[in-house]
């Protein structure tokens, strides 16, 4: 559920050529960002539409840390003004995200950070970033065995002993 708190006009200067948004991270850091930059996020766009309907400006509380939020803002700033098919709500969804060189460098981070970014991107509904993160995760595990994938992704084995020894759970398909 989106969490919204009211803020003073002095905190968020809303007039000017590009309006500003106040984003509050889970570690209570306040980040001011141009609305135009975050327009790639459908979540933020919906929030802004809500503000316009009520004629009130708010800060948007987000459930992830400022470190992750800054990475997302960096991504959105890089693609400011770019058209990406995945982020177009009116376009038919493409099969999967294309390879973008800048994204590969941008997502050259450790596994935990990658998972945090993809979670944040999903929350903010930035499909292009979700797609690029998914591609990076898939690249990490491609060609690996189940045990190696378990180590890389930090997934616990929750199969019961019966399921583990059941041929149907192992050889389906």
């Amino acid at each position, binding site marked *: 559920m989106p969490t919204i708190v009211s803020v003073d006009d002095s905190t968020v200067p809303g007039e000017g050529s590009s309006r500003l948004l106040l984003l509050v991270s889970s570690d209570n850091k306040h980040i001011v960002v141009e609305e135009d930059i975050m327009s790639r996020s459908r979540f933020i766009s919906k929030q802004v539409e809500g503000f316009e309907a009520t004629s009130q400006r708010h800060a948007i509380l987000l459930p992830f840390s400022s470190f992750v939020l800054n990475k997302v803002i960096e991504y959105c700033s890089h693609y400011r003004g770019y058209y990406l098919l995945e982020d177009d709500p009116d376009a038919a969804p493409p099969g999967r995200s294309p390879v973008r060189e800048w994204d590969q460098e941008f997502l050259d981070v450790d596994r935990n950070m990658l*998972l945090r970014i993809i979670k944040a991107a999903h929350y903010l509904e930035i499909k292009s970033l979700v797609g690029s993160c998914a591609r990076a995760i898939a690249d990490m595990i491609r060609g690996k065995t189940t045990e190696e994938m378990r180590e890389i992704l930090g997934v616990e084995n929750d199969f019961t002993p019966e399921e583990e020894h059941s041929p149907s759970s192992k050889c389906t398909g």
Partner: protein
Amino acid sequence: MPAVSLSTLPFDVLETILSHLDARKDVLALSLLSSTFRDLAIPRHLHYREIHCPLNEDDSLWIHLAQRRDLALNVRTLVIQRPSPDPVCVPKSLSPYALEASASPRHPVWDAVSNMQNLRVLEVYNGWRRYGKESMTILSGILGCAPPTMDKLVIHGLMEEWTGMGVAEARYVLDIYTRAPPPGKAKAIVLPNTTYLPSLQCLRSLIVISPSIQVLELPSCVGYSEPLATSFAECRFHALRELTLGANWKFTNGVYVFAFLAAHPRLRSLSWHGHYPGFDSLSHSLPVLEHLTIGSWTFLQDVVRGQGDRPVLKSLEYLSPLDPSYIDPVRAADSKGAKLHTLTVACPTLPTLETLTILFPYVTHLRIPGGLSVTRTRLPKAIAGQFGNARRRALLRRPSLKDVLALFPNVEFVGGMTFQSSAHMRKVLVRFPQLRGFDSPCFFK
């Protein structure tokens, strides 16, 4: 910060990650991580990665895929089989979905293929006479709907099915090739196994509509007439990297094959199962060839000689177990293929290996399909008559593993071996410590 687990990610994020894994092996490995992944990956991805199915008359599979774009996106390989008892491979989760016949005049397979936006391989068996005249339109439609992600298009057909068509129908099929856009998108094309009269024209059409093909397989040259074959030399694909020619590209066609090869000096992989008549000028034609499958000693020598002091040939499949050139083996001074590390030789005799080791002394992976002592080889009649029994026996002598390792001291892996048991295999490994293992497949008696 606490560690984040992939299991905690939302369903559609996991779905997006899975969509980037094409191989069934990877999807299966992921599905064994936990029950969450199993429930997501098996019914929605593993069952949809490869679909092998004829064009059923009830069309239920195609309607299902036309209606469920989310599932059609998970298909990577689609094989539209001929109606036959071949085993089908269709998603098991098909039945729970409600299927309604479409009132559209479009065939549902077209919409199904249109939805497969991540499709990599499309194989179509062209023996559809039982579907009547409309089958050609269906084929054309399928080709027209195929997405740009397609890497490989294979159009199969059997000789008896094509010869029954008649020239007019064969030309109609040619039109399909010419007009359909997907071959222009595909990176690999495998033409029908039956190349009836229009095959060469078909090839020339491909150059116009898909000049950037990287992989080309021409299994047959049946029906080529000589005037047409001269045009073969005019065929030039600027990006062609891999070429496979079938077994009946023989002597007469060899002239044209040579011309074709000369027009493609950037070929990296060549597989030719036919006879090679030998042309001196070929020695400069294939300077960057890395993988060669050939049955002709003359051709092999020409390629090695052509690469001169900068050999790049990395792997060789030598298909002939015996060759007349053993009578006059190459000299050590001819040894030029120093980079070759993978050598495959079918049922070789000891003299074959002795000759090959002079050309390629640094082989590390040696594969011997059929093993060292399986088949009995005969000398060609023309040669057998020249020698006495002792010389003939020497030419046909089979090598032992000890002989092989003495000839190729750098070999670390040997393939195609037969053992009595796994214990026997271990004993052999202990006896020959330079051997690090056996390249699969190894067989047990």
